[in-house]
């Protein structure tokens, strides 16, 4: 009789332990990750970021694809149902999707260029705009003689970045000339003035990722054509500009970005503190147009070249 009772008690304990462990396992942090369904080559970018997140994360990730024609209400409902501890939104579409979510949880936004207008106080945003400190140090590496950098920006879109750039310029011993413009007409005028006045030895022009004041079909070709003609140094935060003739650009290192995002979430979980902010991209790669460099008579040695992640023109 005792033997039978003992046997039963053991089984019962086993099951109780299992259940508790499960519950304990269920008590692990859950993060919802929203990312867009998109065609290549962009899907690869998000995959890289997600890979990085996965590698670093100590939390469970509930992934949700945001389709092209998504229903924000459904996204919000689903997210809230998951009862996440944090939400990661990658890409502009996901960022738009989380606007309707009421949950009082930390949100982390990544892989988005235009943020400032809609940034919520409860989110940490990592912009795709490269950190100006890294931009200026790269500039100095490639064109050590440059003393002045001109930049045209839309204060609404990039005001926050320019503030960081101003500080970085001082650290880099560069004079930063900033010009505000809110539309193409204004920016066109300013760009023309800048290009006419630039000294091709000591001045450079920094093109930002801002489609409210710089377009690829009219202004950019004008700028690049003028700079080529006058041997002016033009560098950009937009990778596509390098292909078209800008000297260099810093572009995202998506995998490491993912790792950073993962770390950030881990930190938030551990510290249980969350400080919303907007920060530039730290994880970058370098793309250089060596044809432009040659045209500008820049000396690029082998060692320096080894640091280029992407070279244009492609062979």
């Amino acid at each position, binding site marked *: 009789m005792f033997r039978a009772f003992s046997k039963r008690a053991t089984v019962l304990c086993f099951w109780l332990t299992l259940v508790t462990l499960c519950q304990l396992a269920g008590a692990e942090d859950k993060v919802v990750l929203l990312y*867009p369904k*998109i065609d290549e080559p*962009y899907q690869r*970018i*998000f995959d890289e970021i997600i890979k990085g997140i996965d590698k670093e994360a100590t939390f469970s990730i509930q992934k949700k694809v945001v389709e092209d024609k998504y229903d924000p209400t459904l996204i919000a409902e689903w997210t809230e149902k998951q009862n996440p501890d944090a939400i990661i939104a990658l*890409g*502009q*579409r996901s960022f738009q999707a989380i606007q309707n979510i009421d949950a009082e949880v930390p949100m982390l936004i990544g*892989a*988005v*260029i*235009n943020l400032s207008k809609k940034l919520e106080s409860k989110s940490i945003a990592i912009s*795709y705009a490269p950190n100006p400190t890294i931009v200026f140090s790269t500039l100095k590496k490639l064109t050590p003689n440059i003393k002045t950098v001109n930049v045209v920006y839309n204060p609404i879109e990039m005001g926050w970045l320019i503030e960081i750039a101003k500080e970085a310029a001082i650290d880099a011993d560069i004079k930063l000339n900033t010009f505000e413009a809110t*539309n*193409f*007409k204004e920016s*066109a*005028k300013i760009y*023309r003035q800048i290009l006419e006045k630039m000294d091709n030895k000591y001045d450079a022009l920094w093109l930002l*990722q801002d*489609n*409210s004041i*710089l*377009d*690829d*079909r*009219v*202004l950019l070709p*004008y700028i690049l054509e003028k700079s080529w003609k006058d041997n002016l140094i033009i560098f950009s935060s937009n990778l*596509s500009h390098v292909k078209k003739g800008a000297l260099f650009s810093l572009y995202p290192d998506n995998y490491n970005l993912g790792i950073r995002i993962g770390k950030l979430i881990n930190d938030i979980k551990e510290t249980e503190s969350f400080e919303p902010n907007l920060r530039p991209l730290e994880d970058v790669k370098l793309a250089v147009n060596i044809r432009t460099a040659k045209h500008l008579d820049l000396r690029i040695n082998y060692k320096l070249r080894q640091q280029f992640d992407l070279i244009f023109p492609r062979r």
Partner: protein
Amino acid sequence: MNKLLIKVNKKLARKSFRYQVSLLFILGIAIIVFIASIAINTLTTQIITKDYIKQGEIITHVLANKSAIALLYGSKESAQDAVDSILSFPNVKQVVILEANLKPLYQFGDIREWQGVIKTEVSPNPVLEFEDNKFWQFTAPVIIKTGNSGDTPNTPFEENANSQIVGYVKVLLSKEDLHDINSYLTYANTAIIILIASILFLIMQQLIKRMTAPLQIFAETMHSAEKGKKGIRLNLEGSQEILQMSNDFNKMMTVLEDHESELEVARDKAVESARIKSEFVANITHELRTPMNGIMGMLNLLKDMNLSKEQYEYANFARESGELLLLLITDVLDFSKLSAGKLALEQVSFNLREIIEGVMFLHASTERGNGIEVNYLYDRKLPLIIKSDQTRVRQILNNLVGNAVKFTNYGHVTLHAKLISEDDKNITIQFHVEDTGIGIDKSDIGKIFDSYSQRDNSTNRPYGGAGLGLAICKELIQLLNGKIWVESEAGKGSQFFVEIPFLKARQNDEEVDIVENLDAPKEAHARALVICPPGNFLTIMEDLCQEYQIELEWISEGRRIQEALQKSLQENNPFDMFMVNWPNTISNIMPLIAKMKQQPAFAQIKVIQFIQQQLINSDERHPIVDYFITKPIKQGNIVEILIKILKHKIPQGFIKPKIIKLSKKTREKKILVVEDNEVNQRVVLATLKKFGLNADVAINGEVAIESCKQNHYDLILMDCQMPILDGYDATRKIRELESTVEGKHTPIVALTANASKDDRDRCFASGMDDFIAKPFKIDRMSNILNEWLNVEST
């Protein structure tokens, strides 16, 4: 339009086959050319226009792209560069680059005002804003778009493409080239199509010629065959159908020619047969009429001789039988002529009333006619003289009245002659023969006009007759363009209606005898007491009194005579005459009248008795009767008697003297009678003797010529049908003889039984002056003698 089309259609239908096919082909080609030309031009123009518009849009798009920098910098030079870059495109006539506030930055060309209003929301693509006959006007906004390139979607890292309108461009494109191309295409297309059509037409012409040549030959051959050429055959080459047609035509011609030969033989036989029949009919007419003429003439003469009552009756009976036989012969001959279609009609003026009186009198005189009232009524509106074939009219009336008398045992047979319609030249008269006879079964009414049809064909049939009368009637009426119908019921009498159109004759036609002094009795305004039973005769009396304006008072019983007479006396309105239609044997009318006439007041009243012809010599004649008038009442008789009775009441001048008698001088004239038949000779001589004339006789034409050579005659009465030398040839020879003597012309009057118009014409053609038909009436002979013997008045 319809009339014109019909006219053109008719005209075309008469053209040759080749012409029609060629015309059809030309029309077809013309229509195809026209339609094809229009279609090709339209399509080509549409395609080219589309291209031009597309080109315009492209030019505008290029300009818009190139203008972006110029607009961004407000640079006129850049704008000019942008414009210059598109001026190399053809047809660009005017260009403008407008800033966002629509202020022109740069314009090239100043041809016209820009049309249209720029909308605030424009299509990002160039649009054809306006067009007219000369220009297209395109417009496009100048947009600066962000994104990787204008048309690819944005990256997933940034917001939607930003696009800003920095200005507008307008391009005016001329349509000159389009119009030039259009004109060129039109001419070229048309020229090519016409060229092809012309070549086709020439080819088709040859083909048509080849195809229609056999048809042409066929038509010509058919034409020759139609003209009567014999032995015509086709020898065509061509398609199967042509060969078949050719063979069939040849067969048909062979058959036709064979038939024609047979028909020719048959025709010749028929013509010969018809000629023989015609000759027979002509001969038999003469052969039958000649002895009949002798019989009738002799009987007429006999009647006028002092015969006993019995002899007179026999002579009359023989005369009547002769008349009926003559009628029957006429019927049979006419029937055969009608059957052969040889009966010819003549148009002569004649006294219709006299014809009717003759017919009624004839049938009233027969044995059957004796026992019934045979009368007639003549519509006063009818003229006395009309124009038609009097022989046929008489024949029709004879047959109808004869038929009615035949089938009426008691009662009456009355002929009504009524006016139906008239105009200036024509008059339609209805003859209505009414009888109280045995009537006709409804089932027999349809058969009565059939030849040889009789009510009772058994040998004991009481009514006699050959059954030709009504059949001939119907044929004759139809020949005269009239109609006949009957209303009858068995046992209730019959009514035959005939309507015939006639021509109106000239007033007072001198050739036609009418009763003289017709109007005289009307002037007397007489009064008559008519005594007769009610019925048909009373109607006759009323009509007669109305005609002569005699006031009529009628009584039907003898016992009323006195009453009537006393009343007339009291009213001081005396009677002029008694008119009695009552057989004396069954009434006491005459004795009553005789008694009344004893009174002085009534002694002067004349008594007229209407009596059957047969009873004129019988006991029916009462001595108190002043005048007997035979029934049916002849107009001449009643007028003569009324004049005699009312002479004292008729104003002077209304009674004209009688026909002039022949003078002594006339009676000395020399006459030659040329007649081969002895009986006829006697008839003519006896008739001439009545006029106090003597005559020589020649038995044939040859003897007549000899007589003329030896004697001078004032008048020759020439028979036409004679042996050795007939009347026609004899006349010609006499005229030849007379031509040698200036001014000599002996009147020659044909005296012949051949009474047709052709015969008369033949007489005149031979040289004769006049014509008298046998059997002739004494009045007619009298007129002839008066005319040709130069009568003087007495």
